[in-house]
């Protein structure tokens, strides 16, 4: 019979094999911080529903140094999320033609990042106007 004995290599630690994979995993790990931030907001909402004293407790908690460090990290991670989200966008969109020419990946990423800057500024100004 045949002497075939195909060898299947292990996938253990595959993400360490290539810097490209490390960047991919970094992109995916951002989700942990998105979840943590959403949980902090959810706590605030529940506290809001429980009344003024409870909500003020949550507000005081946000002022602790640990929460500042946490939010600074989350801010950096969200910025990376924004960048990576629009960076992969050209791959996730159908081919689009504008004026007979194919829309270039750089244009798509650039437009997305610009939209994000505009949206963030809009939120900042609206909140400023409300307070």
């Amino acid at each position, binding site marked *: 019979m045949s002497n075939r004995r195909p*060898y*299947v290599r292990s996938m253990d630690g595959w993400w360490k094999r290539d810097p490209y994979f490390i960047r991919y995993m970094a992109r*995916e790990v951002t989700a942990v911080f998105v979840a943590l931030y959403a949980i902090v907001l959810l706590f605030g909402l529940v506290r809001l529903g429980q009344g003024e004293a409870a909500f003020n407790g949550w507000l005081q908690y946000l002022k602790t140094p640990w929460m500042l460090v946490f939010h600074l990290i989350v801010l950096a991670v969200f910025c990376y999320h924004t960048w990576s989200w629009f960076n992969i966008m050209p*791959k996730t*969109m159908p081919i689009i033609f504008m004026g007979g020419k194919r829309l270039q990946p750089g244009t798509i990423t650039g437009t997305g990042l610009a939209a994000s800057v505009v949206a963030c500024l809009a939120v900042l100004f609206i909140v400023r106007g409300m307070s």
Partner: protein
Amino acid sequence: MAENEKIIEIEVLRYRPEQDKEPVLQTYKVPFTDDMSVLQGLQYIKDYLDGTVSFRWSCRMAICGSCGMMIDGKPKLSCKTFLRDYYPGGLRVEALAHLPIERDLVVDATDFVTKLESIKPYIIPKEPRALEQGEYLQTPQQRDMYEQFSSCINCMLCYAACPQYGLNPKFTGPGILALMHRYNADSRDGGQAERNELGYADEGYWGCTAVGYCSEVCPKGVDPANAINQNKMNSAINYFTRFVTPGGAGK
């Protein structure tokens, strides 16, 4: 050879199923000139140093898709990669990642070929067409929708770049899904519904997590990541509208 001859060390991942329990590295010292490809380096080894080293090759000009291998950990065509770029450090060549090693640098492509056949990689006309009706007409823009995806040479570099295929070989994988999109996106084709039965499954577009490395390593600029991910939107729309669109329910 000329006086400016240099020597480079090539590490080859050997696997001889009849004697090796697992793959082992073997180093060869290869004299080379600046115009020599990695493939030529391997051919030198086979001709002058060790006739037992096995590897696939054919055209030597990046069109047959036979000589893909991991070169210093990156999936590359060895005919299109030059020894001079690794000098004086040396280089390591291994069989394409994520595929079973048959022997030395030769991988088992059975899975790839079986999947390739399964996606009906040919134009399925929308309706039967008689000869006297003439040729199919296509605008340049219609052609642009698929042309890039038709450049695939089945070299499997994208499979070696795809961790999702490595983690789960049931996933159809980048190259073949890109080829599927190539036919689905062709204005002359009417086989989308048949092919998308696979496309809309977990083994199809949804097995992809948009790593994107497949598009990076493709020697022909096919961009499988785009071919796959633009179909997720179609697949999702089809998922939610299948009960309200005529003939949309399918399976």
